[in-house]
């Protein structure tokens, strides 16, 4: 039985990492592979990492850098090694699903937004089948659903479209309905004309 993830403590560790200079992707990849080795699993092949890197969105290098820096901390590392060892799915699949799940989370969000940090931490644990300390499975699922940035963004899009239409009809200062947070893709996306 693997150890449950203490969300608040792990989030604090991630926040501390976020304040430091970023870890280069090569180093981060090495850290993740080292964890897999220590867990008795086969590390992800270089070609796979290269493919993920090549085909990824712009935030991927920052996300993997954040992951690697976080896993340098003894406590997240120890927990992760335990989960990696106990997981039945292949590490390639797990990591691929993790990166897909956190794709909308930009580097700036991960640095500054505690909700996005919490989502990052929870998704990492959930991908490896870990439970969240002090929560039932339903509670954890509900919390993750609430934090789901992709889902929140999708719901927010309706409001944003409506807001733009309303602002065209409203005199005086107009709300641009821009991105709540920068995406890290060369600055905030500009509003559609």
């Amino acid at each position, binding site marked *: 039985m693997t150890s449950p993830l203490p969300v608040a403590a792990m989030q604090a560790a991630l926040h501390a990492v976020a304040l430091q200079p970023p870890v280069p992707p090569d180093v981060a990849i090495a850290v993740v592979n080292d964890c897999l080795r220590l867990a008795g699993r086969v590390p992800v092949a270089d070609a796979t990492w290269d493919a993920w890197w090549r085909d990824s969105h712009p935030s991927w290098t920052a996300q993997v850098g954040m992951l690697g820096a976080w896993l340098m901390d003894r406590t997240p590392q120890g927990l992760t090694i335990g989960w990696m060892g106990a997981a039945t799915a292949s590490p390639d699949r797990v990591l691929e699903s993790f990166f897909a799940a956190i794709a909308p989370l930009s580097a700036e969000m991960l640095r500054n937004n505690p909700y996005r940090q919490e989502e990052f931490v929870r998704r990492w644990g959930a991908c490896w089948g870990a439970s969240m300390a002090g929560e039932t499975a339903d509670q954890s699922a509900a919390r993750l659903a609430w*934090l789901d940035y992709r889902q*929140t963004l999708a*719901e927010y899009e309706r409001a944003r479209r*409506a807001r733009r239409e309303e602002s065209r009809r409203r005199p005086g*200062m*107009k*709300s641009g309905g821009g991105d709540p947070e920068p995406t890290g893709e060369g600055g905030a996306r500009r509003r559609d004309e």
Partner: protein
Amino acid sequence: MISLQQAWQQALAVWDASVALSPPRPWHGEPSAGDGSLACLDLETRQIMVNLDLLQALGAENSLVAVLAHEVGHHVRFPHTVGLVASLRALETRLLPPGTASLVNLFFDLLVNEVVGRTRAAELAAVYRGYVEQRQTELGPTALFCLSVYQAMWPGIPVLPPTAVARMDRYEGWQGEARMFAQTFFALSDPYLQFVYFCSVLLRYIPQDGGRGACGPLGGDLPQPAAEDLAAAALGNPQADRALQEAETRGWLEGKVAPTPPLAVLQRLAGPDDSLHHRMVAAHYHRLCETYLFAVEVRRPAPEQGEVAAATLPWEFGDDPHLIDWTTSLLAHGALAPVQPLQRRQEPDSPASDSPQVPELELYLDTSGSMPSPYERLNSLTLAAQILATAVIRGGGRVRAVLYSQGRPQVSDWLYDEDVARTFLLQYAGGGTEFPFATLAENCRSQREAVTRVVVSDDGFVWDVARPDAASVMAAALDASAQFLALLVVYAETSARRGLRPLLAHPAFRPVLVLEPDDLAGAAAATARALLDR
């Protein structure tokens, strides 16, 4: 329901702070009357007052700790200072349409409730839910959207009843927007950036009438900034400007937010409250004066009004024996002086400047329509006159002001208090220009000593002195004055000097001419320094 004292201790524990507040006391108001506020802070007694009757009527008897914690939160943290409230109120005049009710209280409520809600979300939700169920027609969409943010923050704890949800459904995607807001707003660390984001989102929910409904059960409980705080805030600050820039970059606001002149901000802040407007404008001009009067001298106390001996009167039993003038008594009654003493009282004398070096200043301020009202736009003549008056009074002198435009001028007494002087000089008439030569002549006749006279005007004065009836009055005034200065904004210096040529020959006359109104304040400060250095 727990006791008020127990609830108070638990409320303080929420913030883990010691506060300089007296324990709360109950306020028994009609639950259906008033603005529906549950609690407020009495700044005189430094006591929180909580409406227990209303709390019960809302069905939130068990929420007393949360309500008190909410009030404590406003006191200890959100807002950190009254200055921040003033700054945000000034900032929102640049973000929201004119006539919009202030959102600053709702803003700080969000911050306070996020902290209180970490342990007492259900209690807060009960208060809001009870209020909405009973009085929801009083709450506008801005307040309801804030409640929807609480609902998003506390999943599983209902805040909005179905009827309120139905009212909000006219705003497409509002629930998703509330969730996004909750996950973004509290992650922003800078309060100005938070506030700009807050306004940019709530802008959508402001109704056409500006949203002047009730502020909710925990609203209306912020400390109100003084006129001086608001006047200072109207000047803006770099943090607010950076927040606006970042908001523009992130696309929160459509278009650039142009800087707003401070007097326009003050007008928006005052709304229909003329008294507040006047106090803020006075404070604004005071601050402007201070930027020019950087060599502030230690203020000497206003000269004591002297006393002179009055005529003698018979002294009677019961009068103050110290008032007996024995010399006069002996001279008048000889040996009977002890039984028929005379007393002499002291009467106030007209005070004079306590230093012959510091000038007595007679200011003639042009308040005609050639310059704007100082309440609407910066009036350079008014500011220049205030700078001169403040400098002379601070130097221990006194000032008499004559405000003229057309018709009868307004003449002050001799003024010794700079606040009184500045307030007097803020008056404005508009209309045409007609220099009050009759008043000048009368002042010259009535004044025993030569005073310094300064006219603060524009080309209008040059035209006025060219009038046929002006020559003799001006000649007499120049003879009667220690100095006669004309501090003028003119269109062209050469033609102005040509118009003033008859006066230039007199040694007492000095023109101080500027071409730009913005330069007049600096010229006034330099003139003041020159006057005080003589």
